[in-house]
C-alpha cells in the first residue's frame, strides 16, 4: 500500500523531555490511521511533527525525517507554511475564529493565502462546508457567528476550514473528545466519507472510536511506537503484549 507520510527515526523533544523516541511509521495514503496510547505517550507530539507544528513551541526540536510523498518536510528548502497547507490539522476543542462568521471561518485559510476573488471564495465555502457535511445545516445562516452553532457543528466548521485550502492530509487531535455521541457519530461518518480524497491521521483516547473508524492503528507508549498494523488485527489479536494490556484495560 502506498505511503503518504513516512517517519524515519523521528525524535521530538521539549527541552529535556524526549517526547517521541525513534519512531518509524508509514501512514498509508487515502486511509484512516488512528494513533492510540495513554496520556503523555507522545501521540499528539507525533502528529504535530507531521506538519511542523511541533517546532512552534519554545524549546521544541525534532530530529529524523518526516517524508511527505517521499520528500523530507524538514529539508532546508521547505516552507513550513506550505507544509501546513498540504497537511491540515483539527484540534481537540472546536476553535472557530470567534469574531468571524461561518462563511469567513470556512474561507479563512484561503484569505490568509491572499485569495480575494469572491467567486472562488463562495465556491470554496460551499465545497468545504459540503465536504464537512455542514452545508445543509448552515447554508441559510452563513453570516452567523462561527461560535453561535453547536459544538459538533463548530468542530465540523473547523474541519471545513482545514479542507478549504485543499490539503492532502488531515491530522485530527482528539477531534471528538468534547462532543456528545451524536456529534461524534457525524464526525466519524464524515471521516469515512473523506478518506477517499484525503489521508487521515486521528489521535484518540477512545479505543472504540479507533476500532470503528481507522483502517490502521498505531499504539504508542512512553514516546515509542510499540505496534502498528491493521486495526482488525490490533483489536482482535495484537502481536505485542503491551498493546494487549493497554487495549484490554489491564495497564498498571
Amino acid at each position, binding site marked *: 500500500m502506498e505511503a503518504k507520510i513516512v517517519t524515519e527515526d523521528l525524535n521530538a523533544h521539549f527541552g529535556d523531555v524526549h517526547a517521541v523516541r525513534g519512531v518509524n511509521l508509514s501512514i498509508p495514503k487515502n486511509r484512516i490511521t488512528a494513533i492510540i496510547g495513554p496520556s503523555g505517550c507522545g501521540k499528539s507530539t507525533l502528529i504535530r511533527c507531521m506538519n511542523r507544528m511541533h517546532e512552534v513551541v519554545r524549546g521544541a526540536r525534532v530530529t529524523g525525517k518526516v517524508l511527505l510523498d517521499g520528500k523530507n518536510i524538514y529539508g532546508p528548502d521547505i516552507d513550513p507554511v506550505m507544509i501546513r497547507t498540504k497537511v491540515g490539522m483539527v484540534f481537540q476543542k472546536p476553535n472557530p475564529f470567534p469574531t468571524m462568521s461561518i462563511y469567513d471561518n470556512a474561507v479563512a485559510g484561503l484569505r490568509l493565502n491572499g485569495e480575494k476573488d469572491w467567486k472562488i471564495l463562495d465556491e470554496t465555502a460551499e465545497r468545504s462546508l459540503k465536504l464537512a457535511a455542514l452545508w445543509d445545516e448552515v447554508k441559510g445562516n452563513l453570516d452567523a457567528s462561527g461560535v453561535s452553532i453547536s459544538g459538533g457543528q463548530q468542530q465540523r466548521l473547523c474541519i471545513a476550514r482545514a479542507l478549504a485550502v485543499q490539503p492532502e492530509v488531515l491530522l485530527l487531535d482528539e477531534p471528538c473528545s468534547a462532543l456528545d455521541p451524536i456529534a461524534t457519530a457525524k464526525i466519524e461518518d464524515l471521516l469515512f466519507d473523506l478518506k477517499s480524497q484525503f489521508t487521515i491521521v486521528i489521535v484518540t483516547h477512545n*479505543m*472504540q472510536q479507533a*476500532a470503528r473508524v481507522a483502517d490502521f492503528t498505531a499504539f504508542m507508549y512512553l514516546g515509542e511506537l510499540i505496534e502498528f498494523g491493521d486495526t482488525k488485527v490490533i*483489536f*482482535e*489479536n*495484537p502481536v505485542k503484549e503491551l*498493546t*494487549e494490556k493497554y*487495549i*484490554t*484495560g*489491564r*495497564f*498498571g
Partner: protein
Amino acid sequence: MSPRKAYETELVELDNLVAAMAKKTREAIELAVTSFEKLDVGMVKRVEELDEELYMLNNDIEKRCLEVIALQSPVAKDLRTIGTYLKVITDFDRIGRYARDIAEVTAHTYTMAHIKPLVSIPHMAEMAEHMVDLSVKAFLERDTGPTKEVFELEDKVDSLYDEIFREVITYMMEDSKKIGIGINYMLVARYLERIADHACNIGERVIYMVTGERVIKE
C-alpha cells in the same frame, strides 16, 4: 487488584456456568448411551430434562455474554474469549440434543433385542465422552494442550463409525428382520460421531481463544 475486576468476576461466573453445562452434557451422553445399551426407557426422561436444562443454560450464558459485550466492550483476547463462550455453548447445546436423540432411539427400540451385546457403540461413546472432558478442560484452563488428543480421538471415532456402519449393513443384508434395530444402531453411531465433531469444534475454538489462530481440524 486487576483494573478489570467487574469483567474478571463475570468471567469466573461464566466459567462456572460453562462447567455446569459441560457436566450436564457429559451426564446426558452417559445416560443416553446406557439407556440404549440396556434398552432401558427409565433413563430417557432424565436425558430429556438434561437437554432442556442445557438449553436454559445456553440462553442464560448467551444473555450474559451479550451484556459483557455491551457493557465492557471487550477487545483482543477478552473479545476472543467472549466469542468462544458464545460458540461453545452452542456446541454443548447440540451435544445435549444428540444425547436426547439417542434416548429417543431407545424409546423406539426398547421392545426389540440387540443383535449381540454392544461393544463398538459403548466404546465410541467412551471416546466421545473423553473428547468432551478434554475439550472442557482445555477451555476452562485456557490450555491448548488437551486439544491434540481431542483431534486424535476424533479420527478414531470416525474410523469406528465407518466400521459400525459396514458391520450393521452386513447384518441387515444377511437378515431383513435386523433392519429395524440396524437402522437404530446407525442412528446412534451417527449421533455419537456428531457429538465427537462438536467436541472437536470446542477444541478448535479454544485454540483460537488462546492463540488468536484459526485452526480447522480436517
